[in-house]
């Protein structure tokens, strides 16, 4: 089995989620398991599959700042994806590759991120269910879905933090905020002097270690399918505000 590594790219939020779903369709049809690293441009807030946009996001502030809102197909919480402050990863493969144990697969893929952080000189810890922390503060969150035999897990690695934007755009409930570690969030820039050109190879090495792989682009069919999913689902208010 030869894996595909898609080139690093920045898309709008709806397209990022559409690419993930499209690649999952490709894998389901027998195509290569795929890893991608990407950014969000313009900045966006993604909300979990079961969240209410109105409850989690200051929609007026998003409009004012030109920040898009997109609903993921994965569960989990709301995330502000700063266009310059984050690398997001997706790993999409037959479910058999990661097995049926959901928590074990979170631990495994989070382990790739921790390995990359360690290579950059930043020791980190896995905090179940789906977080990675550095000195008790969250640097990475993730979410996964399993649909019709395909495993998809995506997650963030914070490079830098715009705390003002994050706190202005997200409106977590007091109960949620109270459950967070006292330190809150952190980012790579607070622990290492590493540019994106250093972070990406570290992530690539960690995610693809021991696997046969090659770089490959989205096919033209995948591009078209993703654009269709932007129109029909991820870019539509009916989907975004469905809960």
């Amino acid at each position: 089995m030869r894996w595909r590594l898609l080139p690093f790219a920045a898309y709008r939020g709806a397209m990022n989620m559409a690419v993930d779903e499209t690649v999952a369709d490709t894998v389901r049809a027998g195509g290569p398991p795929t890893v991608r690293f990407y950014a969000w441009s313009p900045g966006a807030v993604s909300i979990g599959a079961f969240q209410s946009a109105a409850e989690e996001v200051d929609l007026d502030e998003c409009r004012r700042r030109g920040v898009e809102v997109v609903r993921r197909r994965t569960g989990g919480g709301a995330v502000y994806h700063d266009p310059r402050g984050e690398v997001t990863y997706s790993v999409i493969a037959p479910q058999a590759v990661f097995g049926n144990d959901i928590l074990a697969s979170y631990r495994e893929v989070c382990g790739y991120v921790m390995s990359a952080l360690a290579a950059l000189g930043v020791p980190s810890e896995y905090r179940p269910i789906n977080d990675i922390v550095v000195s008790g503060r969250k640097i990475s969150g993730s979410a996964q879905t399993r649909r019709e035999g395909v495993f998809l897990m995506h997650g963030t690695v914070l490079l830098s933090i715009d705390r003002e934007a994050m706190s202005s755009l997200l409106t977590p409930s007091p109960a949620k905020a109270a459950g967070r570690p006292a330190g809150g969030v952190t980012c790579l820039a607070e622990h290492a002097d590493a540019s994106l050109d250093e972070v990406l190879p570290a992530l690539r090495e960690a995610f693809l270690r021991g696997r046969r792989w090659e770089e490959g682009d989205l096919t033209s069919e995948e591009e078209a399918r993703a654009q269709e999913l932007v129109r029909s689902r991820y870019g539509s208010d009916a989907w975004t505000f469905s809960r």
Partner: protein
Amino acid sequence: MGPGVRAVERKVPGGKLLRLRLDDDGVRLTGDFFLHPEDAIADLEALLTRLSGDADAMAAAIEQWMAEEGVVAVGFAPSDLAVMLAEARR
């Protein structure tokens, strides 16, 4: 929140945030939890809408439904939903 609308929020220790809203249309569950498959949420909400009784009995019914349907929750347990639903119906 209008009359007849009950909302209960629970941060599961070591787990996720659940918001349960009960109104004339039934139960709506939101939060940062995980449910596999995700499409099962509508059926779960329909089940919660039908359930009544004490929390232990409702927890058992939710657990049985999840086992029968192959639905897996991550970040909460059936008993969390049952306690919230009992509170909303109180």
